């Protein structure tokens, strides 16, 4: 009897397997759109750090396209409104790259766009642990740390009010104590270095040697004696030269240290100015410097723009890596560990995401209808594969009478040695939201204005501007607040309510670590001038009081540290020339004696070179 032949394949299972595959297809048809919509919402929300809603997503398998309806992207800084809503977005995909799991968009059309619309329900806040959530929190903390604006008016000026200061609150005391420590350590280091040179012993012994040499008669010494004597003196001269050189080095180092200490004194002075400002804030005294007026009124909204611009630039940095190195990103969210997904871009292959060059007509609906024309080029997740910067240009007009002009240009160059992201936008005739002035019972409605903004991030350097021009402003007052307004606030109100033009310009510069923000407006001089005329004497009186209160607490330490720096400076500048002079003198004497001995010796003997 032979054993039955072993069969490798189970042919009768093909039917159930086909049924299973059919079931998968059925499940795809039934649920793919819903699942894809959920995934798209999750991914976009995580990527942008705000709630993204999609009303409907349809995968059009036959056309290799995706249709998205009712897309709404919430404003991450204001959950009650949407940044953008889109009625219909049709995305035509290139099917060939799709086989490599790459999204290459051949054509993109958007209809029914709306901007800054009110939401029916507030948006969920971003997950603080998501990459975008962390980025938003970081830029928010950055703006709060780097930009602090003075309050223009806080209340009634009361120069008679008592001012109680705690020395621990004052930076001057801390700066003076720290500087005194630096002075002591500098003095100690200087004295130790000087002592190590042992100049006194060297000068004394050399002077004694010179005296002994002066008593010698070269003829009595003879040639050999002169040669021996000169040779021993030569060693002493070499030692003196070394000491002179070391003394010169010490002098240079001492001068550098003194310059640093002088800078420290300036820092103490700067700390005192900050303490004056702090004490002024306790007395609620306003600053009447013109730039401070604009910073107090328009600092918050301008910093808000730069914060948002930096946040989005950082977001681009995160999702658009430079170069062609393998790029890591978090894996898909699932019950199992997400892991890390690594992209392996390759020259002459498709990137993971690409929107090919194209012109897109954007139909804008909602309360502000209009039409925009967008030109996009090289929008990709791997710009190094494309080799051209990603650019977007949008132009058009909005509003029923096309009164709002839109010009926007953005460039992202994330390859080569110097990646750079920049944005410039200009909106004309746009109704900007009202600006409420901080801690004042009034604000401004700029009305139909021209808003110009720009922002550039290149490495660590940032540059930008934010400008509002309006010829028909309306000043908004809180009637109750105005009734109880201080003289100060009432004066500002009188100045403002007489103006119809508003020109504000904020300029950002410097680096992310050390940004500079200068804000000027046409209100600066008008407000500062009027307030000075009205309240100048009162403010000056209070200012004197502030200075006295601070000086009383810090003068002792500041004077002491100034004296210490001065003493050390005198010590260095007085002592070093003396030491140098003594060395030079004894050097001179020894050389003179050597010359005398050699001249007096008979014959043309060869003596060591001096």
């Amino acid at each position, binding site marked *: 009897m032979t054993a039955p032949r072993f069969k490798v394949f189970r042919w009768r299972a093909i039917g159930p397997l086909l049924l299973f595959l059919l079931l998968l297809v059925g499940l795809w048809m039934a649920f793919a759109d819903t699942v894809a919509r959920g995934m798209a919402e999750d991914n976009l929300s995580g990527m942008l750090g705000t709630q993204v809603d999609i009303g409907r997503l349809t995968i059009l398998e036959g056309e290799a396209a995706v249709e998205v309806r009712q897309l709404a992207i919430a404003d991450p800084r204001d959950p009650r409104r949407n940044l953008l809503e889109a009625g219909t977005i049709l995305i035509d995909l290139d099917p060939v790259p799709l086989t*490599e799991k790459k999204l290459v968009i051949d054509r993109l059309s958007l209809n029914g766009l709306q901007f800054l619309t009110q939401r029916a329900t507030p948006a969920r806040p971003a997950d603080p642990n998501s990459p975008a959530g962390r980025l938003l929190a970081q830029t928010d903390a950055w703006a709060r740390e780097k930009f602090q604006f003075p309050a223009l008016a806080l209340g009634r000026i009361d120069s008679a009010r008592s001012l109680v200061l705690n020395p621990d609150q004052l930076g001057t005391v801390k700066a003076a104590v720290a500087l005194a420590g630096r002075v002591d350590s500098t003095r100690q280091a200087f004295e130790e270095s000087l002592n190590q040179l042992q100049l006194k012993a060297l000068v004394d012994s050399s002077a004694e040697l010179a005296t002994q040499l002066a008593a010698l008669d070269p003829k009595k010494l003879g040639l050999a004696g002169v040669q021996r004597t000169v040779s021993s003196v030569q060693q002493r001269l070499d030692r003196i030269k070394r000491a002179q050189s070391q003394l010169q080095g010490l002098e240079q180092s001492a001068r550098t240290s003194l310059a640093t200490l002088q800078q420290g004194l300036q820092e103490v002075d700067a700390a005192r100015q900050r303490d004056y400002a702090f004490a002024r804030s306790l007395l609620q005294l306003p600053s009447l410097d013109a730039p401070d007026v604009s910073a107090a009124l328009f600092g918050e909204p301008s910093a808000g723009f730069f914060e948002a611009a930096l946040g989005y630039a950082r977001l681009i940095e995160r999702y658009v890596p430079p170069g062609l190195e393998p790029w890591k990103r978090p894996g898909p969210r699932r019950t199992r*560990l997400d892991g890390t997904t*690594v992209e*392996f871009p390759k020259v002459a292959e498709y990137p993971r995401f690409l929107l090919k060059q194209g012109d897109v007509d954007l139909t804008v609906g909602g309360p502000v209808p209009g039409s925009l024309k967008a030109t996009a080029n090289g929008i990709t997740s791997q710009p190094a594969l494309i080799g051209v910067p990603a650019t977007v240009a949008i132009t058009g007009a909005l509003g029923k009478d096309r009164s709002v002009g839109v010009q926007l240009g953005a460039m992202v160059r994330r390859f080569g040695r110097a990646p750079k992201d920049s944005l410039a936008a200009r909106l004309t005739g746009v109704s900007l939201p009202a600006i409420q002035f901080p801690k004042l019972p009034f604000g401004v409605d700029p009305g139909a204005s021209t808003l110009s903004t720009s922002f550039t991030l290149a490495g660590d350097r940032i540059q930008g501007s934010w400008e509002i021009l309006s010829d028909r402003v309306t000043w908004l007052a809180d009637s109750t607040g105005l009734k109880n307004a201080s003289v100060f606030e009432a004066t500002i109100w009188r100045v403002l309510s007489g103006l119809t033009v508003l020109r504000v310009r904020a300029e950002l510069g410097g680096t992310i670590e050390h940004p500079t923000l200068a804000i000027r407006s046409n209100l600066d001089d008008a407000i500062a001038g009027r307030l000075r005329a009205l309240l100048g004497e009162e403010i000056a009186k209070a200012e004197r009081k502030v200075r006295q209160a601070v000086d009383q607490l810090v003068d002792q330490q500041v004077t002491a540290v100034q004296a210490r720096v001065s003493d050390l400076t005198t010590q260095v500048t007085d002592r070093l020339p003396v030491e140098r002079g003594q060395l030079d003198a004894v050097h001179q004497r020894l050389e003179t004696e050597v010359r005398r001995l050699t001249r007096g010796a008979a014959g043309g003997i060869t003596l060591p070179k001096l």
Partner: protein
Amino acid sequence: MGRSPITFSVMLTLLKLLQSLFKTLHSEGTPGQVAAGIMLGAGIGLSPLLSGHNLLLFAMIVLLNVSFGGGMLGLALFTPVAFLLDPVFDRLGYVLLEAPALQALWTSLYNTPLVPYTSFNNTVTLGALVAWLALAVPIYFGARAAVSRYRAKYGERVNNSRLMKALKASKAYNVYSWFQAE
């Protein structure tokens, strides 16, 4: 007092796992066929579910003359193990994807049609797949020895038990028998 739906669901799953275990161990297939099924099922169980290669492994379990029950048993046994080993898979996958000598291979695979759908470029997926490939042969021989030993020592007794008879009599057993090893 009524049971919560979650408790009921867990109990049902455990019962099914028990059914699968008994049915597999007493199926007509040889210990080698059961072990091969467990080995392929382990591949699915160790990998994250939505990985392209899992479809291939499933098709192999169905089409090859291995024990289907063994496959399901392997899946059920190795899925919880995978959760425990995920950090190891993540590390292993990371090392492999970062290895300079393999960069050309990964780049080539990444740009090859259909391959990216396996999610091989995810550290956990690659780590799990490589770990399974390394463990496949030990799993096979280990499972084969265990099934042989079980059948020799306990098979007859359990096969004649009332529980096993009840299981065999159920309708589900008939459907399951379509995939039984021949």
